[in-house]
């Protein structure tokens, strides 16, 4: 259970459109891996493969191996619900439920319950429901972890839509953390936020990598340079270059990468 991801020969089609072509990539635990590239290059498609979110798009076909802790999560026999429980995701636009702040976070833990201490990994998923107090503790823990607790602790029963955009996005992060995932995926989490809210999310990302594997899609190259340990550059469905962020931004090996970084393309 360390949360490293190994992607091999990943191909994605939307009907006849070949959206990702033979992507091979290793993502390490306790690191932030940034995916950059121009619009339509497949970066969102890629990150959505990592927790099988492309399954819900009817005309999408995903082939290849995506190993998380050595297990192929792209296997058709894999329990999609379990995959998504282990791999959390935060979307481009904050999408809280139109319920109270507390309810937003309590929803998923209530749904999944808690793993019985006695059940080993191999046996069936025996799950117990949380007590009210445990839920409250979990909600507080998640909000603290997402650096939102101090701002909302006095209005837990207010609608999530009374929060600002940046707070909503941190609420979505807290909501994903409450499921206790190993990996956190962020699909352009700051594109709808102002610079101050963006800075807060970025601080949070750096803080989260201590406990989670973090993958972030961004169209903001400065953001990738600021937070990521490694960066992957996609172009028209191909993975062009992948390496240490510093190397990608200072000494790119590929001409395409250099052109994109320096703003001559994309």
């Amino acid at each position, binding site marked *: 259970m360390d949360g490293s991801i190994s992607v091999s020969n990943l191909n994605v089609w939307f009907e006849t459109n070949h959206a990702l072509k033979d992507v091979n990539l290793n993502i390490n635990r306790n690191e932030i891996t940034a995916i950059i590239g121009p619009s339509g290059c497949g970066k969102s498609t890629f990150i959505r493969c990592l927790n099988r*979110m492309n399954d*819900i798009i009817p005309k999408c076909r995903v082939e290849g191996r995506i190993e998380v802790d050595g297990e192929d999560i792209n296997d058709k026999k894999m329990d999609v*619900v379990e995959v998504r429980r282990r791999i959390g995701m935060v979307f481009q636009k904050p999408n809280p*439920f*139109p*319920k109270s702040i507390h309810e937003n976070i309590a929803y998923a833990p209530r749904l999944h319950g808690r793993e019985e201490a006695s059940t080993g990994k191999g046996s069936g998923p025996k799950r117990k429901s949380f007590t009210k107090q445990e839920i409250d503790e979990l909600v507080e823990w998640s909000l603290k972890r997402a650096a939102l607790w101090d701002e909302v602790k006095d209005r837990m029963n207010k609608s999530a*839509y009374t929060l600002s955009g940046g707070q909503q996005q941190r609420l*979505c992060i807290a909501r*994903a953390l409450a499921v206790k995932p190993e990996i956190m995926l962020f699909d352009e989490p700051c594109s709808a936020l102002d610079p101050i809210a963006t800075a807060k999310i970025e601080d949070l990302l750096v803080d989260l990598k201590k406990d989670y594997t973090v993958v972030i899609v961004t169209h903001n190259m400065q953001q990738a340079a600021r937070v990521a340990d490694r960066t992957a550059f996609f172009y028209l469905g191909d993975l062009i270059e992948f390496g240490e962020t510093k190397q990608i931004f200072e000494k790119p090996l590929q001409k395409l990468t250099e052109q994109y970084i320096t703003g001559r393309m994309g």
Partner: protein
Amino acid sequence: MDRMLKEKLLFLFFRLCALIVVATLVILVGYVVINGIGVISWSFLTEFPRNGFTAGGIFPAIVGTLYLISLVLVIAVPIGVFTAVYVVEYADQPLIDLVRLRAWMHRVAVRLHLSTSAASTRPPKPKKHRVSSWMRRAAVRLHLRKSAEPTHPPKPKKQQKRASQRLFYRILRIVITNLAGVPSIVYGLLGFGMLVIFFHLGYSLIASAITLAFLVLPLVITASREAIEAVPYSVREASMALGATKWQTIRSHVLPYSIPGILTGVILSVSRAAGETAPILLTGAIVLKQTLPSSIFDTFMALPYQLFVLATQYSDATRPMQYGSALVLLLMVVGLNLIAIIIRNKYRKKYRW
């Protein structure tokens, strides 16, 4: 003509049109209220009619209509809402999964066959055996048809499947729209022929309720579909990304957020079901009955039908009761709608975007 004058005249015309609409309602309601209000009293609401509808009250008709509306909603709302859920959320999947059906039939056939051959000590069960061989034959035929198709790469086949699903979805949409356009007397005849006679339900509350449920289904489906479609995709995505299944997402997010819209369909249905005369006169409403309906298989009295009969077949002496019935029917519909509107507003406030 002067442009300004033309503008003013046109506006006057539009305003007149709008006025006609308002006036119609005001006159209609006003007339019923003025003529009916004097008739209404506690005894009018709680007594059975006497002396050929010239004395007594309309209690059985009120109760009959309330029973009818409740039954209609109990039947139509679940069917309508879940049809809408299917149309919006699942229509990209086939209604009947042929591959699964084939596998299931195989399993059943094998089990039936095994159970008949294993139980050789017991007397043979020819009927079961027949079922099993029929099932197996059908399964084999389905198989044959499948293997008779040229083996092609997976993609075109998928597209073929999708095309047939889209066709089913299109047919479903057309059916729903056209159901709404069928005249109510035709529904009445359907209810009479199918429910009363063919299914032996007889003249009964249940036959009328089912007929009216058919009638209001398109209203419920359309309102629910619009409400369900209005729930943003991002909410579904958020829920699924947290590890909820599709049904869990629908149950805890999509349906609760659609309740206001679904209630709009319910409001429309109540008004429609309460007022329809033709379908119930063919399926279970009767003119006079000295008891309340004892079960859903009993006949019943209903306000709109009573009104129709009194107005067309009884003397002028029943005039007060006619106005009284009309007013009570009107108030009942308004009252039921009010309840639905209050619930709707409560939910609108609860789930604020």
